[in-house]
């Protein structure tokens, strides 16, 4: 049990730090979050820089500890996050790498790494969010194509995406988990309509996607027909894990800024607020330790050092640590920005303030990527072994 990094890991950190220091001053200003084409251009340019410097595939091939260091250092340096490349780099890419044919890997993976193509996720539907297996978008085989009809929702980056990882129902008579198929949908295909949705934070974060008899070549199917649920579980297993590493680093920075702001405006004299910030300091420190624990566990598993166990007797169930982490992190993030509102006083009503905008967006954290209620069911059933029920 140690927290010391190896020589190789320290060398990687030093090299990355030097590179970040040299390139970050050359980046243009960040685009308006409501301007999707500008966001896409900015995020893909950053991915191209990572590609040219040899860091593009850090999410795919690198050892878990290297990925941790990458995310920690890029956030600490204030570098851009994956942004519009999120689905391609963290969901679709890894899924195709594991489940795709050699031709599919050759077709789709290099453009993701180079920042040439952007993906979005077509899983959720208006009537199938937390209960994903109840989705109704249909795909009917017609010659060499699937003909797809239905609607998807909460699709981030849909306005600017080239591809969509699409989950469709190919066998309506099969049990609901068994009749699903995973397709790569070209977003410029005839019959695809994107309608942006405005979030409560005022940004166009995601969209509805309507599919009206869209023809998708059967060669775009990843995995077997009707085996889409299993492929999707592969995708979702990439979703948790280290996805929030950079954010925890950022939250710790914001917490320090809150304390300094409170001291500057006199609210630091309020012991209740002070103690609240102190408690958050402990929470985010522990979340960081939980990340280090989960990453070490993943590294041990990757190195084949046998079955490892997460703390709390989770018995080595994959992804369990991720659910535990996400449950606490999503609430801590909301508590952080609630505390920010208290520091800001009347300024908390200014939606133009960075902390207020982040307070609004933090409300999505207990919903996206599996609501807290679903995460609690996962922890209770898969880790603690409580019976399924309602």
């Amino acid at each position, binding site marked *: 049990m140690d927290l010391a990094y190896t020589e190789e890991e320290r060398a990687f950190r030093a090299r990355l730090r030097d590179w970040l220091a040299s390139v970050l001053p050359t980046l243009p200003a960040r685009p308006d979050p409501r301007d999707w084409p500008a966001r896409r251009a900015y995020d893909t340019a950053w991915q191209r820089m990572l590609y040219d410097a040899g860091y593009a595939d850090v999410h795919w091939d690198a050892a878990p500890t290297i990925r941790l260091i990458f995310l920690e250092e890029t956030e600490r340096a204030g570098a851009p996050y994956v942004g519009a490349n999120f689905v391609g780099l963290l969901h679709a890419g890894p899924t195709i790498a594991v489940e795709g044919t050699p031709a599919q890997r050759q077709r789709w993976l290099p453009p993701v790494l180079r920042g040439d193509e952007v993906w979005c996720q077509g899983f959720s539907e208006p009537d199938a969010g937390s209960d994903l297996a109840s989705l109704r978008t249909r795909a009917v085989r017609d010659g060499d194509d699937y003909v797809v009809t239905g609607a998807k929702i909460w699709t981030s980056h849909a306005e600017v995406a080239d591809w969509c990882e699409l989950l469709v129902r190919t066998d309506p008579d099969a049990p609901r988990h068994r009749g699903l198929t995973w397709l790569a949908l070209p977003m410029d295909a005839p019959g695809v309509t994107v309608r942006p949705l405005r979030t409560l934070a005022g940004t166009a974060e995601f969209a509805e996607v309507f599919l009206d008899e869209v023809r998708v070549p059967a060669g775009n199917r990843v995995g077997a027909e009707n085996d889409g649920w299993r492929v999707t579980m592969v995708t979702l297993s990439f979703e948790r894990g280290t996805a929030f590493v950079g954010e925890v680093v950022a939250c710790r920075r914001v917490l320090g800024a809150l304390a300094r702001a409170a001291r500057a405006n006199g609210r630091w004299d309020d012991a209740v607020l002070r103690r609240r910030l102190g408690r958050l300091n402990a929470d985010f420190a522990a979340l960081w330790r939980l990340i280090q624990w989960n990453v070490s566990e993943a590294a041990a598993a990757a190195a084949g050092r046998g079955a490892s166990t997460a703390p709390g*007797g989770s018995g080595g169930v994959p992804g369990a640590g991720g659910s535990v982490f996400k449950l606490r992190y999503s609430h801590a993030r909301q508590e952080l920005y609630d505390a920010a509102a208290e520091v800001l006083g009347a300024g908390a009503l200014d939606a133009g303030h960075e902390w207020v905008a982040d307070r609004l967006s933090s409300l999505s954290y207990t919903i996206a990527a599996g609501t807290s209620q679903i995460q609690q*069911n996962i922890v209770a059933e898969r880790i*603690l072994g409580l019976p399924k029920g309602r």
Partner: protein
Amino acid sequence: MRFQLTEEQRALRDGTRKLLDGRFGRDRLRAAVDEPALDRALWRELGAAGFFALRLPEEAGGVGLGLPEAVLVFEEAGRALLPGPLVACELLAGVVDGVAAGERTAGLCEGSAEEVLWEHPADCDELILVEGGGRDARDAPGRAEGVYRSAPDRVAWTPFASVDPLTPLARVTDFPRGAPLGGPDPSRLRREAALLTAAQQVGSAVRTVEAAVGHARERTQFGVPIGSFQAVKHLCAQMLVRAEMARSAVYAAAVTEGALDVTGAKLLADEAAVRNARDCLQVHGGMGFTWEAEVHLHLKRAWLRAARWGVAAEAEEALAADLID
């Protein structure tokens, strides 16, 4: 970075659990409730097993392990609800004669606390007072900082009915400071006492998750196990989240030995132990409110530990101050 238990650490944890299961199982726990005097035979057995000499160097007859190993052992002690001046004896082994072997016992008091409390006053062969070395405001400047020993019969104390039936308590009203005790300095003693106390809280927090889950799987209502109800599931899931957060923090603090890491770990561990015991009690329903279930013993001990070696208010203030340092 390998922030995981090593094979040896896992073996130590499992071995300790087995040892405590065998020598301080459920029956013995219940017998101890009726007869809270320290079981000297058990104490000697623990001493013989190396329980107190864990961190003493091998050339001094110890096991030669470090703080992370001590934390694992204390987590098991917390899980088993093992009573006695455990923290004091672990920290004073090799400093006070006979403690390492479990032949004699020593108590440890926080001189700078609001009230100087003494655990197991009738059972300590020696009493040690730690003054200063803390971060909080009560360590007024100019006040003596040091570690002092005294024979228990020279200390003035008033026993009172302890909320934890397994931990007799007294208020120390006068402590004649004998010779300063050589060995660890006050800040280190306090830090390590807080960490080992936090480790016991983690063990208790994990044990109450297991107890709640076990009960929720067996107890049926409306024709199904109550653990199939989301309301009960979600209580249990949150208990695990608290326990794992606290455990990560406590393990990391054992590695870094940083004062602030320990402070944060103790804060989270206190919360995990207390709130998990309460939720466990809730899952047990009416049965949880009786003397028959053991959960009340976890709750009462968790309250006691939370009141020692740094309470929440002090910890939160210290962690807040760190943000602007």
